[in-house]
């Protein structure tokens, strides 16, 4: 396991020298957002789609990842001839504020009064919110000269950002597609995040969050966090279908180091692999920061507990998609959003896609989902006069 993250990679980015004042009151002296774009912005600047990534995603939506060498995380959805057709749309995706793929976050050099010009923010990075992430993205969209986004699309935490976009900047969002999302993070989801965070804290290599000083990163803790989280992204049925109770003879010693444990189950081997590959591309403090931002998310709370008030008079066209076997962001959460949108009189489409793939379904090959997304965007093009 080589857990060092290559920070030498240069990501396409923009730096805003005026920084960003966060919801917590802290002012970040400067703000850097790393981003990627695909397709061409038309002359009227009316064909831009902002894609918001999930907790551990990044800006490399539809191209080989410079660090892992793997295909983009949403190549099934974004690309030429795909539901988000890059021959038609100009697609933008930025690494979220707090992330570790080039945007300002715990792994950036601390540049406030307490910084010495070389030390990193680490655990001193101020707490951020989904609202802060979205205000940072708005700066990027303004910088690109786009007054109104044709659509904002995202799954999971990306869907939270979509909802926040629609609430904060209704005139800048023609269509909104929150996928497998919720208007607040549930107690169960906060609980799972807490398990992950405690695993990181318990790793002696975490060193109170100042692990960059020793060069040893809390790889074991972060891997356990990822393993626990990964289970919540799948479903019991999908795990049974993929692994069942199958075992891999001969791998036990290498895996656990305890011969009396016997052969390793395939599902264990899979999770260990997920954990060990994750730590090569993700920063533990970023994981802590972003999971906390998700936990804080409660859109209705900003509107006296009335979610409908967040969308009052909205002209945005919404399309909510949930997946039948998703127990992390279950259909009931999307339905509650749809009902709030109805109360607000907004234009809303809502469908639950039948699948056994759990929360991760939004990243996978789901033809019904892809048809739905493509059709919704086509309908919106007609209404926007974008033909």
């Amino acid at each position, binding site marked *: 396991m080589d857990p060092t993250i290559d920070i030498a990679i240069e990501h396409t980015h923009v730096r805003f020298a005026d920084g960003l004042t966060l919801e917590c009151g802290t002012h970040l002296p400067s703000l850097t957002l790393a981003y990627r774009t695909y397709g061409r912005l038309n002359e009227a600047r009316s064909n831009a789609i902002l894609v918001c990534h999930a907790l551990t995603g990044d800006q490399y939506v539809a191209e080989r990842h410079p660090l892992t060498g793997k295909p983009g995380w949403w190549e099934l959805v974004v690309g030429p001839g795909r539901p988000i057709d890059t021959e038609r749309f100009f697609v933008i995706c930025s690494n979220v504020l707090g992330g570790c793929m080039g945007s300002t976050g715990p792994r950036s050099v601390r540049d406030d009064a307490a910084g010495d010009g070389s030390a990193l923010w680490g655990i001193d990075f101020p707490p951020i919110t989904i609202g802060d992430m979205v205000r940072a993205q708005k700066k990027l969209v303004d910088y690109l000269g786009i007054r109104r986004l044709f659509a904002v699309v995202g799954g999971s935490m990306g869907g939270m950002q979509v909802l926040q976009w629609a609430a904060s900047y209704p005139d800048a969002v023609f269509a909104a597609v929150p996928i497998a999302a919720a208007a607040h993070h549930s107690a169960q989801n906060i609980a799972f995040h807490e398990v992950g965070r405690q695993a990181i804290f318990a790793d002696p290599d975490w060193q109170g969050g100042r692990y960059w000083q020793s060069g040893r990163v809390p790889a074991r803790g972060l891997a356990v966090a990822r393993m626990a989280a990964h289970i919540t992204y799948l479903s019991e049925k999908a795990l049974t279908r993929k692994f069942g109770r199958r075992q891999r003879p001969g791998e036990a010693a290498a895996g656990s180091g305890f011969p009396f444990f016997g052969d390793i189950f395939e599902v264990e081997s899979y999770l260990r692999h997920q954990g060990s590959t994750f730590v090569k591309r993700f920063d533990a403090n970023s994981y802590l920061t972003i999971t906390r931002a998700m936990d804080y998310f409660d859109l209705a709370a900003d509107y006296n507990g009335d979610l409908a008030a967040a969308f009052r008079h909205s002209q945005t066209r919404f399309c909510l998609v949930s997946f039948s076997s998703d127990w992390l962001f279950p259909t009931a959460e999307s339905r509650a959003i749809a009902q709030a949108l109805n109360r607000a009189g907004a234009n809303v489409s809502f469908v*639950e896609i*039948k699948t056994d793939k759990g929360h991760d379904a939004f990243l996978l090959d789901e033809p*019904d989902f892809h048809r739905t997304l493509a*059709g919704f965007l086509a309908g919106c093009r007609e209404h926007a006069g974008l033909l």
Partner: protein
Amino acid sequence: MSTVRQREAIRYVAKNMRVDLRLIAEMIAPGSRVLDIGCGDGTLISYLFHTKGCDARGIEIDMAEVTRAIAHGLPVMHGDADVDLAYYPDGAFDYVVLSRTLQAVGRPREVLRQMLRIGARAVISFPNFGHWQVRWQLLAHGKMPLTAIWDRPWYETPNIHPCTIRDFFELCETDGYIVEQWLAADETGRRAPWRRSRWLANIFGQQGLFLLRSA
């Protein structure tokens, strides 16, 4: 080119649209806000948008139909007439449409009340259980009738609240709804010539179609 495609789409819709949907569309003013409950694949809302410039939306309980509708670019949400109408604000629509669905909902009277709360007008079509074939089959055979419209045996029909045209008039009176228009039609959509007589319409009309507003 887009207008050509649009025109083709309209022709396609018009040719394939159920006749009661065409009759419903005739009752709806251009440019109005419409909610179609039980919209299926969205044929009516597509027609109303393309030919009448309506802001038409739909609710459908069958998830496969919802997927098909959204994939065709139509604003349709999965929902249940018995549950989800409560979430719309008063007067959100000019027309709320319920075609061939009233007999299948759990609480038809409440659904009607909700329709006229969230919409200025309600358009309702339903298969007429008073049609002579239905009456004859029950009388002659003593068995639950099976006709072109009532085509499922009693143990698996979703139609748990069948009513006749006269029954419907009676409910409108009891609940104080004003019948602005009504007609009876046969299955092929020819308007029945008995529209002046409720009694004849109730015998010869295969489906009833009503335009209501609150008193």
